[in-house]
């Protein structure tokens, strides 16, 4: 707690000196409100400033409509394109101010909206800005799948903790895919503004920052969270938001400090309790962090034998020596655990060679430990012509979880797109050595159940120790 106070005091001191330049006693210092508190985003025109808008998808999707409106003289009109529109498959954009606003006196972004047909806004929220070309999504909030009707209706997006938004530029953002058979539609938004409502109640949220963790000295970003609010209309609405809204504290700053939004930095071996709360909403949680201290990283690298396995005979997923697949995610925990995993990964380098390092590999949701998947669903990989799977593994000797009869699964969608009906599974009969790179070269015939090979989408690692490095993941013949 002391470190937090100190941090804010220093910030306050700097701001006050810069803003007013007068002397005040240290204990009188408060964060001065120096940003405008204007709540309006769009009333009868954009109430923002110069260059207030960035469009995504079909970039012409936004216009101002002077015929259709909820009140006043104009509304915001958004044309969601049909799937396959050559100018873009979706309507997206962000509205922002060039100078931040102090929104700490408001509790929600509200607006009136209607659509040309009953349809769904895929994502809508605030806290995303690109003022002066600088993207900032520190305090991003998202409501997913907001259903609009053909009559003007009021919608609400609660602010998880208003006290955090003392300098916010991101006023409104949206991303809408055509849903109904890929058919586009039009929707209108009016009276878009922040309000101080006493009629939003009963937030609930998953415990945060999450599960207890065994970690090493490093920076840890707490993942996005979700909370459910009861709206003035009596319905429950769930929104997701960044962990920057949490007010964090560490009981043992000698082990971990918490002076960045949504992050904690583990600085030494030991244990500490990280507590997190949403100020003003009476939500809190905690996780026990046990640090092993500094990591033990590989000091050497392995490189593939490109003479024996020239690029023409290789389909590479991750290697500095080949052209790699397009990897969507190195840790798509959402596939497996419903958010229960705390796995972290980083790309590291030794002697000029990159490798992937996984820490805290465990699947707390399934309670069986140690699972990660490398996913490349967007561009599946065809390994029909390949005969062998290769991967180099470095197991850290101090890895807290020792389960070590690795299972590797290859998952293919060639027979059922979107379903994993072809899963080839290989279980090692021996444990992996620790402290050095171990090359695995496994014939595809050893992956039992692998019937399709033309649309490989996931490589799943299971029952590995909880701290590993992997490199040179490729198939060859």
């Amino acid at each position, binding site marked *: 707690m002391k470190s937090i106070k100190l941090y804010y005091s220093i910030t306050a001191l700097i701001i006050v000196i810069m803003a007013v330049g007068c002397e005040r006693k240290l204990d009188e210092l408060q964060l001065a409100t120096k940003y405008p508190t204007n709540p309006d985003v769009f009333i009868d025109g954009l109430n923002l400033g110069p260059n207030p808008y960035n469009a995504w998808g079909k970039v012409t999707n936004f216009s101002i409509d002077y015929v259709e409106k909820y009140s006043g003289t104009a509304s915001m009109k958004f044309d969601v394109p049909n799937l396959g529109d050559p100018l873009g498959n979706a309507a997206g954009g962000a509205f922002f101010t060039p100078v931040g606003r102090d929104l700490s006196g408001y509790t929600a972004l509200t607006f009136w909206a209607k659509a040309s047909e009953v349809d769904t806004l895929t994502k809508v929220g605030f806290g995303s800005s690109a003022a002066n070309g600088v993207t900032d999504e520190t305090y991003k909030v998202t409501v997913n799948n907001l259903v609009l009707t053909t009559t003007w209706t009021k919608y609400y997006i609660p602010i998880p903790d208003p006290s955090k938004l003392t300098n916010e530029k991101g006023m409104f953002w949206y991303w809408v895919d055509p849903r109904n058979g890929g058919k586009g539609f039009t929707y209108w938004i009016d009276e878009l503004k922040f309000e101080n409502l006493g009629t939003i*109640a009963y937030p609930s949220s998953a415990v945060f920052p999450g599960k207890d963790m065994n970690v090493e000295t490093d920076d840890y970003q707490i993942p996005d969270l979700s909370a459910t609010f009861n709206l003035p209309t009596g319905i429950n*609405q769930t929104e997701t938001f960044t962990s920057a809204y949490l007010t964090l504290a560490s009981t043992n700053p000698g082990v971990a400090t918490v002076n960045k939004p949504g992050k904690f930095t583990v600085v030494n071996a030991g244990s500490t309790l990280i507590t997190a709360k949403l100020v003003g909403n009476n939500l809190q949680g905690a996780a026990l962090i046990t640090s092993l201290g500094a990591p033990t990283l590989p000091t050497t690298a392995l490189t593939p034998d490109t003479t024996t396995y020239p690029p023409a005979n290789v389909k590479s997923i991750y290697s500095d020596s080949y052209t790699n697949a397009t990897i969507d995610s190195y840790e798509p925990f959402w596939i497996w655990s419903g958010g229960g995993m705390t796995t972290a990964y980083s790309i590291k380098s030794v002697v000029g060679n990159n490798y992937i390092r996984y820490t805290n590999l465990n699947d707390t949701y399934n309670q069986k430990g140690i699972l990660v998947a490398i996913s490349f669903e967007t561009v599946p990989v065809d390994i029909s012509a390949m005969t062998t799977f290769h991967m180099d593994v470095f197991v850290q000797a101090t890895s807290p979880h020792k389960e070590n009869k690795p299972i590797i699964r290859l998952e293919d969608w060639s027979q059922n797109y979107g379903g994993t009906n072809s899963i080839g599974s290989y279980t090692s009969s021996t444990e992996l050595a620790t402290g050095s790179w171990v090359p695995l070269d496994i014939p595809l015939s050893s992956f039992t159940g692998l019937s399709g090979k033309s649309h490989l989408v996931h490589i799943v690692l299971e029952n590995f120790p909880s701290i590993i490095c992997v490199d040179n993941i490729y198939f060859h013949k």
Partner: protein
Amino acid sequence: MNFTKIKNKSDKLVSVAIYAFILVSLIGCNDTGNVQQLPQRKYQLVWSDEFDSVAGASPDATKWSFDLGGGGWGNNEYEVYTNSPANASTDGNGNLAIKTSLPKWVTDHWENIYSARINTKGKFEQAYGRFEARIKTPYGSGMWPAFWLLGANKDTIGWPQCGEIDIMELNGSKSSIINGSLHGPGYSHGAAITKSFALANARYNADFHVFAIEWGKDYIDYFVDNVLYQEITPTNVLGKGDWVFNDHPFYILLNIAVGGDYVTSPTQQTPFPQTMLVDYVRVYKEVK
């Protein structure tokens, strides 16, 4: 004039004089300097339930009976009323808790919505006086909590001839609005005489509020937190039907209905289960 303030429940009181002047604080007047002028009335407590029993106790059977079952209750309501302490019991903190079950969402609707409805029929009935209850409402779309009175002659002459006085009912989709209504012959269901009272930027379920009527010959005055927001007299039903509130006693009901004609159907976004907390119900007679 006597300005004795209404005391809270820790001080049992035998008589009170209602404010002659009450500050209009919430709605209907932006000028907070204005005052509301009310006729001076003196009341004497004649019946009450303070709900001070231990946690889990069923409502006092000498005062309350249960309405049981489902079938829509004339309004296409979804709930089934039980006499289980799970649906109506004291909470051990001085309140009666009327609770819905946690129903099950099946495909597109909720199943197994249980709740409770209690009444004082045959146990306490009175014409005229002040009827008040201190209530923290449930919330959420589809919720329809109520504190209301029915004419004790309902079984002989039927509804709406018996009369119905709704002291408080709330549509859970409008968290800051309650309604006070009057049903009688020629003015019932959607044609009832009604008026709403809204909190400025706050929800009824966030705290306790005192809902009351003061009822005498040819008038019924409706109050929220001792602010008069509606007076209904025979003039209001002129041309519609008879005034049936001058000649027979009424009994008290408390319930949470779910769904039905008055509210929207509960959706998947409705927060279940829900609880209505009733701190007390008190009934007074006017003394001249």
